[in-house]
C-alpha cells in the first residue's frame, strides 16, 4: 500500500505553543524555553496505523505587527488553530485564524487546540471552552484542551485531524 503524504499547518498567535505541540508529537520532547519561530519549519511524522505521512508546517505566530502569510497555507489539507488558555486574547482571535485558513482552503479540515491547559484551573478551562463553542467555529476534527508540557491530548489532536483528512481523501 502506498504511503499518502498530506500537509497540515499550525497557526495561532505568537507564544501559544505551536512549536511545542509539534515537538511533543514528533519528538516526544518538551522544553520550557521560549524560542520564537520565524518563517516556516516543516516536520514529518508517519502514522503507521493509517499509513499516512503528515507534513506539519510550523508557521510564525501572528503578532500585531505581522500577520500570517496566506501563501504558507496553500495546499494544506488541514489546520490546527492554537490558543493559549492563559492569554484570553489568543482565544478571542481563534475565529480570525480559522477564517484565514478557510479563505485559502475552503474544504480543509480544522481542529482547535486550547493549549497550556496545565496552567489553569478546570473551571476556567470550561469557561474558555464555552467561549470557543459560542463562536460557532464547528471544528470538524474537534476542540482539544492540550498541554505540550504534560502531553495531554496531543496525540489525539493530531490523530483525529489525520483521520478527518483521510475521510476526505
Amino acid at each position: 500500500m502506498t504511503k499518502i503524504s498530506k500537509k497540515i499547518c499550525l497557526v495561532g498567535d505568537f507564544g501559544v505553543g505551536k512549536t511545542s505541540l509539534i515537538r511533543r508529537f514528533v519528538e516526544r520532547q518538551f522544553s520550557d524555553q521560549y524560542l520564537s519561530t520565524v518563517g516556516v519549519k516543516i516536520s514529518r511524522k508517519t502514522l503507521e496505523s493509517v499509513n499516512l505521512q503528515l507534513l506539519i508546517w510550523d508557521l510564525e505566530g501572528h503578532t500585531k505587527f505581522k500577520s500570517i502569510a496566506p501563501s504558507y497555507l496553500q495546499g494544506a489539507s488541514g489546520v490546527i488553530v492554537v490558543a493559549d488558555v492563559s492569554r484570553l486574547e489568543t482565544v478571542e482571535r481563534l475565529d480570525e485564524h480559522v477564517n484565514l485558513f478557510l479563505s485559502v482552503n475552503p474544504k480543509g479540515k480544522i481542529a482547535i487546540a486550547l493549549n497550556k491547559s496545565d496552567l489553569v484551573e478546570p473551571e476556567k478551562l470550561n469557561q474558555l471552552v464555552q467561549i470557543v463553542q459560542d463562536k460557532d467555529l464547528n471544528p470538524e476534527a474537534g476542540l482539544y484542551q492540550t498541554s505540550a508540557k504534560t502531553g495531554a491530548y496531543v496525540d489525539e489532536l493530531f490523530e483525529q485531524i489525520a483521520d478527518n483528512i483521510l475521510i476526505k481523501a
Partner: protein
Amino acid sequence: MPSRLKILAPDYDYLALNRELLVQEFSDGVPNFAESPQNLKLGGDVRLAFPELVGMEGIMMDILAGRQISFQLAGIVRADQHHTAQAPDHSFYFDLHICHHQDENENYLILLFKDVTERMKLQQKLIQKSNETNLLLSALTHSKNYGGAEGAGGAGGAGEAGEAGEAGGEKFKLELLRNTDYTD
C-alpha cells in the same frame, strides 16, 4: 538550457522540473537546500527531497500552464538536528521561488533557491525580544486583573482597582519599551 539561469541570477541555485515533477537538472548548490539530499536524483520525484512541495502540485501546474506567474515561500528553515548548547547551530533559512521557463521546445518548472540565513536570524532576534516583552506585559495584565491594584502603586476601593491597574499597566508597558534594546 536552464543552466543559463545560474549566469543570469548568480545569487540563486536552481532546479528544473518537468510536468511530472521529476528532476531534470539542478545546480551544484541545490543539495544543500534539500531536506533529504540523498533523495535528490535526476529523474526522481522532487517531493522526496523537498517535502514543502507536497500540496503545491496544483500551484505548480498553474505556473507551468501560465495561469499563475510565480509563487514564493519565504524563510523555510532547515533545522540543525545535532545542535546542542555546546555545539554551534548550523540551522539555515532559504527562500524558494517557483516560476516557469520555456526553452526552445522544452517547458520547465524552475525552482530558485536563495540562502537568507543572515536576514532571518536577525529577524528572529528582533521578534524574540518583541514577543518576550509582549508575553511579560500580558502576564502582568493578567496578574493585575486577578490581584487588584496593589502592585500598581495602590488604590482605594475595589471599584477603582481596574482603573489603577490599567494605569499601572500602561506605566509598566512604557518602562518595558524604554528598556528593550532592539539592537541586541
